[in-house]
């Protein structure tokens, strides 16, 4: 989270740099946080690295067109979110054709790492959230973005973010009540 929060700082250090050096600076600060962000959104480690590499390629090509270097980190984040959407859209379609009754989630080996039961249940709920709610939750609780920043990243209004967050919280509550009832 700190690495993501540091994005603004790294962006401010980019002023005056050409694309190559600017992207390199941003890469060093943002590579891992962005891979983690993509992973939390799509659940696929290798896919996450691909998505973020594509995002950095896009950033390097757009460098001269960005309105300001401060916008670089925000552009990167939005590109990663959009990349995960595209990847997941294709994956859902393909998986349905290949395995229409199978588990709709392929959990990476890393996600079996030690975590307590409560956390695993929370993650299960997050994975089952509709796309936008999942994005809002990850950007809010992991990336630590404000409602306005999330809205800008997702290209929606702050009200939509608020609504999605509220619905996600209800989903958490409902899921946990179901567990209690069992």
């Amino acid at each position: 989270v700190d690495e993501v929060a540091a994005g603004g700082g790294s962006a401010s250090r980019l002023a005056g740099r050409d694309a190559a050096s600017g992207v390199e600076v941003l890469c060093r600060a943002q590579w891992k946080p962005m891979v983690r962000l993509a992973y939390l959104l799509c659940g696929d480690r290798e896919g996450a690295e691909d998505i973020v590499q594509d995002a950095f390629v896009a950033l390097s090509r757009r460098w001269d067109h960005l309105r300001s270097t401060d916008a670089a980190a925000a552009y990167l984040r939005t590109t990663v979110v959009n990349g995960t959407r595209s990847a997941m859209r294709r994956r859902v379609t393909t998986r349905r054709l290949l395995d229409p009754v199978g588990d709709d989630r392929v959990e990476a080996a890393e996600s079996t790492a030690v975590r307590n039961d409560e956390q695993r249940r929370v993650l299960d709920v997050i994975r089952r959230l509709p796309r936008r709610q999942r994005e809002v939750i990850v950007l809010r609780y992991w990336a630590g973005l404000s409602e306005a920043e999330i809205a800008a990243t997702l290209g929606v209004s702050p009200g939509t973010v608020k609504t999605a967050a509220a619905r996600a919280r209800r989903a958490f509550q409902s899921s946990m009540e179901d567990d209690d009832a069992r």
Partner: protein
Amino acid sequence: MTMPADLDRVITAALLAEADSLTISEWTPDAVSVRDRKRASGQSRPGPARRRSWTALGAAALVVAAATTVTVLAARAPEKHVAVSPGTTVTYALPSNGWTPGAATMDAAFRGSFHAALVDGHACAWLGDTRAPSLWPAGWRVRFNPTQLIEPNGHVFASEGDTLLASGGQIPSGSAAAQCGGNTKSAASLTELELVAEPHASDTPAVSPSSSSAPTSTGGLVAPDTTATETARGCSPYKAPIVTFTIDPDGMRPDCAIVGGTQRLRLVNATNAYHQHGVTVTVNFAGLPPRTLKIGQATTYDKLFATYLAPGQHYVQVSNFGDSNFPIWLK
């Protein structure tokens, strides 16, 4: 599981644990430039491993689809992402089934051209030539003049006449019938949507291809790049009559294609997607006169590929991507 006293803390902790459990390869600064150079040179495209994986999955999907006679939803269907300028046009909510990506869906498949109409002030949209009540995923809207289907994120997904594929099923019509002015008892509940490239009546070539002449020709056909190796052979084949390439801020989508002689080329300028300003682009293809596309504009080449291209690899060049070549392999 009892509701945690501090749900925020639990969610944050779970996400942190999940993210931190990830082993990430160290970043190599050269990777971006190498990746970009390969893409720009047309010698290779980014993510070969992933692309191979998708190709394999796509092939398997075709087998499954053929066996079950289900319409194939192409894994790499072209995507349109033309940003809608807020406030410039009134958009209308479509009757919705509330479906969102990731939720369960019924197994029926729908295919048809997209149409929409205003009925007593309400928007009605359907697939196929006959108006039929349809329920759309949550947040989808339409606008008119021109008629366009708009995704929840505000991007134009399809235009009047575009062919769409959808999963879903038939359900009691409810509000959909009322909104479409009909009294049928069932409605098509559409969930996951895919766009299939099709002719678009409003496409207007910026420059008429009839005035073109190919600089390098073989028997009247533009010769392919004889130095090309396997660049485009690994791309996905497209079966729709029109092969649509969308030019977005990051490149062309798809960035290559295998086509047949009876297909035609369509290009869409969506350089203003992803909150970018967008630019006017100039496209060069097969020695035809360059075509200039303003933001949001589309152009369709009138001629079938076989009438002006020799089999082999050809390239689409787009002005704002420098020397980048996007290969098209004519079988």
